[in-house]
């Protein structure tokens, strides 16, 4: 069952050109998971010990804003990575995540990966350099959102 996930990962740009042995190990830390719609995947502040690769569906990344409730700041869709709080201490989610549609994903055991990355810096580099790309793309998108480019200029 776990072996059949490798082609799924291999086909995706995020894992492209990752050396075989690292890909194998990472696949070993992955599991299929499915969520119904409007399901909370994790809460803000929860321990961040996994990350997700969304295979189908739509997830809302949200913050609890006083008097406004859970406010979606971005959505993560099919083919995108959800979650990088597992990378840096204190390893707690900075945001909450809730599905907006029925969602299928791969969940990766980040706790296990963190330990392995400490031992094997090559694996660490392969994984973290890819996460840097994800974070930088999100930062670009967030900055554009901040600029409120469709807003009125007066």
């Amino acid at each position, binding site marked *: 069952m776990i072996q059949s996930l490798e082609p799924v990962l291999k086909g995706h740009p995020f894992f492209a050109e990752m050396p075989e042995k690292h890909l194998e190990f990472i696949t070993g830390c992955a599991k299929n998971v499915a969520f119904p719609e409007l399901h909370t995947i994790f809460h803000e502040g929860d321990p961040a010990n996994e990350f997700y690769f969304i295979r189908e569906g*739509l997830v*809302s990344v949200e913050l609890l804003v006083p008097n406004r*409730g859970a*406010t*979606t*700041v*971005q*959505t993560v*869709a*099919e*083919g*995108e990575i959800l979650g990088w709080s597992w990378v840096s201490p204190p390893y707690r989610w900075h945001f909450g995540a809730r599905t*907006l*549609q029925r969602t299928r994903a791969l969940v990766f055991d980040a706790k296990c990966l963190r330990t392995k990355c400490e031992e094997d810096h090559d694996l660490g580099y392969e994984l973290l350099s890819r996460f840097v790309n994800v974070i930088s*793309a999100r930062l*670009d*998108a967030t900055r*554009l*959102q901040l*600029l*409120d*480019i*469709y*807003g*009125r*200029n*007066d």
Partner: protein
Amino acid sequence: MGAMIETEIAEHRVSEPMIPELFRIERLKRETEDTFTLELVPVEETTKISFLPGQFNMLYVFGVGEVAISISSGPAETSRLEHTTRRVGVVTKAMGMLKPGDTIGVRGPYGTHWPVTEENGRDFVVVAGGIGLAPLRPVLYHLMAQRERYRNIVLLYGARSPEEILYKRELERWRGKFDLEVQVTVDRGASGWRGNVGVVTPLIARAPFNPSNTVALVCGPEIMMRFAAMELQKRGVPAERTYLSMERNMKCAVGHCGHCQFGPTFVCKDGPVFRLDRIAPIFGKGEI
């Protein structure tokens, strides 16, 4: 940077280019809180409506002034013109207060158009930001009217918030078609919104089109077009097949007043639709 003007220019438009033709407002439809669409019919029956998608008119409000607004109706619609605009300045605010039956001046159509005539068999990716959807609507009508000529058609549309989505009913209708991919996202969500939240540019990375066979049409705020062009390029759509619609201050629209200059180009006659590789040296450069 040759112009792609294919519309016939009526003789009187050429000899007196600054005198408007008269049109009557048939309808003024409120699209969002600050955006409205004018439906115009000619006052004289002999006035012909003929334009290509991407072109614009100069609309004149009596005693107030003129403003350049893209035509947003379908090119096959020859009995009336539609223009969608925001109320942002003196002229558009005055325009928004006009009533059905009022007369409005129209000069045009001017400018270059979206490429559709030689692009049979291509995938089309249309990326629209905010009111940028309005100048793209005519080309979407055209693509759908001649659907069999093209392969995949994708529309990626980013609006500020769910309340500011333009042409909502039409978008819903388009989304229901099996041969058209429509993805809508908003910069900020609202309670009850269960769709994408985030800027439109990340949608480009995963949209269903074949980059080596794609023509990309992009329209929106300049910074959005810059990032969209980057994403398209990252995905392998060449600059020679990416088209943008630029905007600059316009007073005459016929290449005489000098206001719309963008580097060596005049946006009124070398644009507003530009092929990206032709403006690459000046696009995104500050204060050019």
